[in-house]
């Protein structure tokens, strides 16, 4: 009995000792010894990448919020640069919390395919990271937001979050969606374009049309809104300005009918919009407002479609509607063979849900 007890005790001691050794064996770094960058800016000039990281620095001394640190480096691959920055920092770099990747416009035009697949491959960056194009040099943008971000640690992220500061004119695109668009036959993405604003931190500049990882065109903010509506995003609370009135969209529903006629795709769509009247100029009737709104929207959507056809980029994912009508090899040629010839008949049906607190004539 005594001997067994001794054996047990020594086994226990051994386990405790082993634990002490093991847990020190590989570096499990505590969270306060890690840097968690939230924004990464990428630009490229002459085969050299330049990367800027915005890293929140927790400080307990002043309760005024989060301090930020901006670090950057240049190099030939993204991972190498991140490693180099990490080596120079006193803490371990942990990119999984990255929320926004800012891509300089010039680099986006050159093509971001490699970067996107690198991000997907390494698993050090979450696929849910937002991709955004920056319409000015990244250093400039960062130095601008430095001033504002003192009070709000995740200002850039919040701008794109559904449950925070997102507004319906801003496109939504995440790294995984970009990666999908690179390999999908029938789906392209629109990435928001921003630059630093004068009054607000960020000014939205519409969005970029990305085809196969390259920026090939632009949409204005209003067109982005339409694209969002068409993609079925719930864009409540959006204000639309017309000659005679301002309305707020409170509900949208789309009905698509796709068919093939003589090898040409034909699309008949009806977009049902429910709107709320906010403001009127003069005294238009309900019918007038409706008709004007429908005309404007149809015109705008036509613009978007024309841009899509010209750029051969299917940001609305219209090709998805033809997946059951085309064969696989035909789908592969969707962008080049079919999309430019698409015949579309898209109608908007607007119904004014409420006139607000006042009666129509008031």
């Amino acid at each position, binding site marked *: 009995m005594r001997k067994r007890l001794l054996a047990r005790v020594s086994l226990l001691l051994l386990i405790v000792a082993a634990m002490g050794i093991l847990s020190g064996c590989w570096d499990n770094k505590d969270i306060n010894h890690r840097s968690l960058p939230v924004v990464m800016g990428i630009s490229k000039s002459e085969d050299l990448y330049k990367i800027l990281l915005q890293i929140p620095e927790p400080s307990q001394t002043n309760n005024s919020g989060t301090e930020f640190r901006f670090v950057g480096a240049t190099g030939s691959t993204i991972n190498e640069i991140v490693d180099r920055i990490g080596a120079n920092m006193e803490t371990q770099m942990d990119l999984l919390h990255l929320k926004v990747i800012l891509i300089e416009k010039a680099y986006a035009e050159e093509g971001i395919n490699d970067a996107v697949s690198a991000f997907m491959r390494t698993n050090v960056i*979450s*696929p*849910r990271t937002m991709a955004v194009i920056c319409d000015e040099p990244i250093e400039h943008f960062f130095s601008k937001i430095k001033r504002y971000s003192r009070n709000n640690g995740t200002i850039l992220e919040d701008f794109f979050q559904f449950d925070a500061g997102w507004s319906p004119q801003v496109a939504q695109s995440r790294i*995984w969606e970009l990666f999908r668009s690179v390999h999908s036959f029938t*789906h392209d993405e629109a990435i928001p374009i921003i630059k630093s604003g004068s009054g607000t931190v960020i000014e939205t500049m519409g969005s970029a049309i990305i085809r196969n990882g390259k920026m090939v065109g632009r949409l204005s903010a209003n067109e982005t809104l339409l694209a969002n509506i068409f993609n079925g995003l719930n864009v409540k609370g959006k204000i639309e300005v017309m000659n005679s009135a301002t309305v707020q969209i409170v509900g949208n529903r789309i009905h698509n009918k796709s068919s093939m006629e003589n090898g040409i795709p034909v699309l008949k769509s009806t977009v049902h919009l429910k709107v709320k009247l906010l403001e009127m100029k003069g005294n238009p009737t309900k019918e007038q407002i409706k008709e004007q709104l429908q005309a404007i929207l149809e015109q705008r959507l036509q613009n978007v479609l024309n841009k899509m056809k010209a750029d051969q980029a299917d940001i609305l*994912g219209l090709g*998805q509607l033809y997946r*059951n009508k085309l*064969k*696989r090899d035909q789908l592969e040629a969707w962008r080049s063979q079919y999309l430019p010839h698409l015949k579309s008949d898209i109608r908007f049906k607007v119904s004014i849900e409420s006139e607000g607190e006042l009666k129509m004539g008031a």
Partner: protein
Amino acid sequence: MRMDKTGQVVAVYLISHIGIIFIFYPGQILESAESSHWLPITIGFCFYLVMIGIYLKGIRCFGGRSSIITILQERGKIVALAMLLPVAVYFTVVAIVTLRAYAEVIMSLFLTSTPIWAIMALLLGTAVYIAYLGLEAIFRTALLVVLLGVPIILFVLFSSFQNADWYYVFPLLDKGTMSFSFLGHTAFYKSMLVFSGGFLFLGFIQPALTYKPSKVIVACVCMLPILLLSVYIPVLTYGRSTAVLFNLPFLEAAETVEITWLMFDRVSMFFMICLISFIMLLLALIIWMIVQVLRMAARTPDWVPLLILAAIIYLVCLFIPDWLVLDRLLWWNVIPRIYSIIVLPVALLVMGYRYMKKRKVEAEQ
């Protein structure tokens, strides 16, 4: 005291399949066919259903209340050894591959800086401990783990539809797939791995745990939606042409899920956690079965073959340098696998019929 433990048996059955399916299955199926993946899934599943049916029927011919080890031993120790040793070899390789592959997955998802030997040691250690506790403990543990894990699994499965684009289902009837071209693809046969580890245990557990074969078949049919989900969630999220690029398509699809009200960022991790716990039990079960076969050859206390086996598995895993070797190991294992999931059940059924006939003749005399 004989009690019906169908609940536990079904729990173990589900665990041993789910743990493998979501990791191995979608990648292989996506590779085997360009579209209309439901067809290869259904074909593979039907084949599996037939095999499990034959196996259960075979056991039933012998009264349905004893383990195949005793059934075969009644026909002589040599026969039993000859018939079951290939199964043991097969299980050993499955254990090695599973251990190594999951350690790799864990390393890439959770613990990038932890050495792989430590990860494998914990995984194998847990499995061996559970196997040491014995069959009934394995099954009761499975019940507890299912109770804890299934809510999480269901939650992740439902939330994975967040980014689904239903148009990616099409084309449903693709000419290439309908011509059964996937039958010529090795990936299709590799996908059958997920079926093979799981059902043989049904023959080992009686009479300690008795169950109703009909209920097991019902549970087996429940696997079909799980298989479909595991393949179609990545397809709906990414589209086949993108999803086929991933090593672990399902987890990548789960990675895209964003749930703003949750305090955690990565829902896919919770899913992975449950899978790991399932895999620990599967490994324990496999190891227990190998030990049962080995103990037939030499009467020793349970822990001797257990420790030797654990040491062998661990050492082999340490010496596997990369996925390529793992893949080759899987390929070499095809013969024992075919034996285990086709020859053994069929042989059992044939023997069972002859046994029944003999009994009938004896009864008439």
